[in-house]
């Protein structure tokens, strides 16, 4: 699959909250080839600090305008620089990258479990699903964060008209509770779902355990440090359980390594070996 690499112009910088920014780029080629769950690598500086590009899920695509967007939290030095980019600046992007989410395999409905910065790919997945005929009402969307200011809840999400459930650990917005709490509650009442989750590793681990316990199918999108983002460095590798189903013989090793940037970022529930 062809990957584009070049300098793309920023077309909009929208400040969603104190530390959450939405950036939009003019990138025809990337906008046309993206599937939900894929990401881009952005080189945030023209020098070597930071050295590596930073990975961001593609949050929205507008094929008509040839634009792609990301939403990100200012988490450190690189995202700090990125937050300062404005209309007209050009920036090196490589993408689209990664496997993306599989097309929903049943029509029992979808549950999106988004923790913090995990919202963007699940928004795009929901949008694609709806565009492909999945009724909005059959998508349950949980968006959670520790606190109100860290919540990713752009208007576009509300406009999708999914069954949207907002929660915060401290109750400062939406219901009080974690994404996992919300998911457990939802799973009590309904079944036949496929779960799609993206967020902090602690959350993913708990969700994975929950799904395995309840034998519910699901897909988890992981985050790792990514020196290259396109499979050439092996730096982003995570441990996965060898599975004969996936053609992985176990030849005496208790784990295999998979590159999050190529074989992921989306993994099937039960696949990842958590630390």
């Amino acid at each position: 699959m062809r990957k584009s690499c070049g300098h793309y112009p920023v077309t909009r910088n929208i400040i969603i909250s104190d530390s959450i920014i939405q950036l939009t780029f003019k990138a025809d080629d990337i906008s046309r080839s993206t599937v939900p769950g894929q990401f881009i690598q952005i080189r945030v500086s023209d020098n070597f600090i930071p050295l590596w590009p930073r990975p961001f899920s593609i949050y929205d695509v507008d094929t008509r305008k040839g634009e792609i967007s990301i939403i990100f939290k200012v988490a450190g030095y690189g995202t700090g620089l990125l937050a300062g980019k404005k209309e007209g600046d050009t920036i090196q992007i490589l993408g689209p990258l990664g496997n993306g989410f599989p097309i929903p395999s049943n029509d029992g409905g979808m549950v999106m479990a988004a923790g913090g910065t995990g919202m963007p790919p699940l928004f795009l997945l929901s949008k694609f699903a709806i565009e492909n005929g999945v009724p909005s009402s059959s998508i349950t969307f949980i968006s959670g964060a520790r606190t109100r200011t860290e919540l990713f809840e752009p208007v576009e999400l509300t406009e999708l008209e999914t069954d949207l459930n907002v929660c915060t650990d401290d109750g400062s917005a939406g219901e009080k509770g974690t994404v996992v709490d919300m998911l457990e509650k939802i799973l009590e009442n309904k079944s036949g779902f496929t779960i799609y989750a993206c967020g902090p590793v602690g959350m993913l681990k708990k969700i994975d355990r929950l799904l395995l316990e309840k034998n519910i199918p699901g897909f988890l999108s992981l985050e790792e440090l990514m020196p290259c983002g396109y499979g050439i460095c092996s730096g982003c590798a995570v441990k996965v359980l060898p599975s004969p189903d996936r053609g992985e013989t176990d030849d005496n090793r208790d784990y295999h390594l998979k590159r999050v940037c190529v074989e992921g970022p989306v993994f099937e529930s039960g696949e990842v070996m958590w630390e």
Partner: protein
Amino acid sequence: MSVNLSIDINGLKFKNPVLTASGCFAYGEEASEVFDLSLLGGVVTKSLTYLPREGHPPPKVHETACGMLNAIGLSNVGIDLFLSEKLPFLAKYDTTCVVSIAGSKIDEYARLAERLAEEGDVDALEVNISCPNVDEGGLEFGAYPKPAGKVIVAVKNKFSRPVIAKLSPNVTDIVGIARSVVDSGAESISLINTLVGTAIDIKTRSFNLSNGFGGLSGPAIKPVALAMVYKVANAVDVPVIGLGGITTASDAIEFLLAGARAVQVGTACFFDPLAPVRIIDGISDYLKQNNFKDVNEIIGIVD
């Protein structure tokens, strides 16, 4: 005006002096989705061991000031899968194919060389001697002249096409090691591999890499690499291939001026996937602007 970019390393031809470095380009498949590999002077594959290896557990990488540490630990597909899947893919491109080999025993190098000698698509071997020498208690083969030479002899016994010895910079006397591998039959030398380094997370008070130590690469190490390339190029009679922190055409030209006949691009491929291509173009522009007709004219002319 057109300039000649092609170079010759003891009979081994490269259409231009820019190769991608071992471990920084996998086996070429992924990068082929970004640009046409036929533009490259050559590709050096990820170091192969006889059996597949997962390498060290995560975390395997850490960012440092203008550089990075890696403790990938030679994770690779092993010789069988390499020959059945990776080599045929690379062979489709019009670029010189250099296969990097590594081992923890001399016999492993020899067995790899033997298998690869049978493959016409393998233009040359690069022998990575920065691996812990299990035969002699864990010190790197590349740490001392004698074991380094022994590895090259074993490989040359099995492989008659050009063999490039890739040197480790973590040594007192790089020239001594260079002389030893040349005396042992290496047709070329490439340097440098990574510098040993580490980093500590002061919050958790543990090492940032699962393996504790890792290899430092990237722009930070360029001055060290350039000094070693200059010294070795001026001490041995075989062509030298320079690498270490090369990111721009200007960096590559520094190495050529210092005496490298070719260069390899490593870490830069991570953060700037088109770097190898821009470096080729940039060398060509430099030659034109300075009225050189042939890249060979600038090799080693620093004073």
